[in-house]
């Protein structure tokens, strides 16, 4: 459906996008993930028509998009900064796009009413944006772009200002729009859980370059590069070289077990990654091939606890996640290990 090909955009010395190519299918829920300033907003603005790439093409169903005026593109963009019309009430803001389609008053009223209900702002319909809270504004912006039911919906951090409950409701609504109305989504989010749970596929950006495009579980479990392994989800990475099929030889920790992502020559440099929730925590006395370390810090995050374990020879502590409140105390000596299948060996891109 949407095809982005070799798109590059520079601002002075900054290269916001560097030869980005993506293909997004009809009805897909596509997420863009990447560090702050990596070019996500810029890409959305190019698709919506507010930025022109220095090179590259963008087509929608084979038709060139770049030559089209923004208002002629069947695309809605929700702006990261909301861009609500300050002189219009919430209801008017939302109705704006529908009025442009020359729908009947009746229908506009109904659809605005429905979407207000959806975003939980029925009571605020008559207020001006400057009299809303941050989260309320964000919901108005969201409502304004979804009410049009465009073929392609571009959302730039749509839920970043919302609390968990409202956010969950909104996520459900987005999913519903995708399934029932068949809208294609491109969503920028810094919230990895959100990307993981909502998106059919995720593109990971870094410095204007697409590092990997994959389904969430694949991305999480089989990162192609060090960047992705490190950026997506928490990870414990160990450097070394492939010693045998399932073993990474490291300088400081000896042999570590894991499964290579693809066939690698023995001796080539590689990285072993193991997720915190895959690390098993044992008492220090336990024998066997585990790493030994001492607990630095235990912190409780709602349903899970994160334990950081300092392991001699490593700068960064190893992170371990356990469900519920943990019983280990800072200072305790522990051993760490994991199943071979729970760790991946990633070739190092030279």
């Amino acid at each position: 459906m949407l095809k982005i090909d070799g798109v590059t955009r520079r601002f002075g010395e900054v290269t916001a996008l560097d030869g980005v190519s993506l293909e997004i299918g009809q009805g897909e829920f596509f997420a863009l993930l990447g560090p702050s300033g990596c070019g996500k907003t810029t890409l959305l603005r190019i698709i919506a028509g507010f930025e022109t790439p220095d090179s590259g093409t963008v087509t929608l169903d084979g038709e060139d998009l770049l030559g089209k005026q923004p208002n002629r593109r069947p695309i809605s963009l929700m702006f990261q900064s909301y861009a609500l019309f300050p002189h219009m009430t919430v209801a008017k803001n939302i109705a704006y796009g529908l009025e442009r389609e020359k729908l009947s008053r009746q229908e506009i009223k109904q659809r605005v009413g429905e979407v207000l209900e959806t975003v939980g702002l029925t009571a605020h319909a008559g207020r001006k944006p400057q009299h809303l809270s941050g989260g309320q504004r964000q919901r108005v912006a969201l409502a304004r772009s979804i009410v049009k039911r465009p073929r392609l919906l571009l959302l730039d951090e749509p839920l970043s200002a919302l609390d968990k409950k409202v956010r969950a409701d909104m996520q459900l609504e987005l999913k519903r729009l995708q399934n029932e109305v068949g809208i294609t989504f491109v969503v920028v989010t810094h919230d990895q859980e959100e990307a993981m749970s909502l998106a059919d596929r995720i593109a990971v950006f870094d410095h204007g370059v697409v590092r990997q495009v994959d389904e969430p579980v694949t991305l999480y479990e089989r990162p192609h590069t060090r960047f992705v392994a490190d950026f997506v989800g928490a990870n414990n990475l160990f450097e070394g070289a492939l010693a045998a099929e399932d073993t990474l030889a490291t300088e400081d920790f000896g042999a570590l077990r894991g499964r290579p992502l693809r066939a690698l020559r023995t001796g080539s440099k590689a990285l072993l990654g193991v997720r915190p929730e895959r690390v098993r925590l044992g008492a220090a006395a336990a024998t066997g091939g585990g790493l030994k370390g001492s607990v630095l810090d235990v912190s409780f995050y709602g349903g899970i606890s994160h334990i950081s374990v300092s392991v001699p020879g490593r700068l960064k502590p190893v992170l371990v996640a356990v469900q519920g409140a943990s019983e280990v105390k800072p200072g305790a000596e522990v051993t760490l290990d994991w199943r071979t299948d729970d760790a991946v060996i990633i070739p190092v891109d030279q």
Partner: protein
Amino acid sequence: MKVSIEARPVSPSRGRRLGAFVFLAPGLTYLIVLLLVPLALVLSYTVFQRGRFGGVVYEFTGENFARLFDPLYLSVLGTSLKIAGLATLIALLLGYPTAYLIAQLPRKWKTIALVAIVLPFWTNFIIRAYAWIILLSGPGLVNSGLQALGLEPVELLYNEGAVVTGLLYSYLPLMVLPLYAAIEKLDPQLREASANLGASAFTTFRKVTLPLTVPGVMTGCLFVFVPSFGNFVIPEILGGGKTAMVGNLIRTEFLKARDWPFGSTLALALIAVLLVLLLAQAWVARRA
């Protein structure tokens, strides 16, 4: 609302040319026909000679430009700069705080305060100038007041001070209105942020409000300076005919000496001075 965010340059596209046409064509056409052509007619006179009994004869001469550098005209230029500059400065000092406070008034009062600024100007400039004569003249109100207090009457009228007062009075609204337009649009959160960072009201003004309203200040100064600089009625009425500004010279050349070529040359000089000032201003603005 987030600051004035995402004001990224709109990139060029086909539709923009149409937009440019729709927005620019009517006004520019109007200006070309009713401004540039007439102006060209006048300016073409600068290279011709005065007829024996006035008007113009179409014989080339460079004399008009040579005459400009006569110390007489240079000194008038200096006086005009001084008087118009002073009027502009005072207008800014009075007008900025006024516009600033108007912008923060509740909506209803805002309109009233704003209209009150222009209301006096819906009478007539000559009547207003004469009102100042009533106030300032020898037997006028101010002096009567002074005398009632047992003080010596002072010379208030028919001097440069009176001219500055008159110009200020005539053009103060031209300062307040653009300033108001500029200040009113400022995001109040910026001022809050400044206060929060420890800035006093004055510092906030100096560091945040003022720099962000520089375009308004420029417009206001332009609106006051230019008509003051080219004025001839106020110097005549309130200056007692004892003060000459460039406007008086131009008026004299066009209407009295009927020397249109030289009058046009003076007008060209005036425009040139203003242009230099504008460029200087733009340069300063860009550096700041």
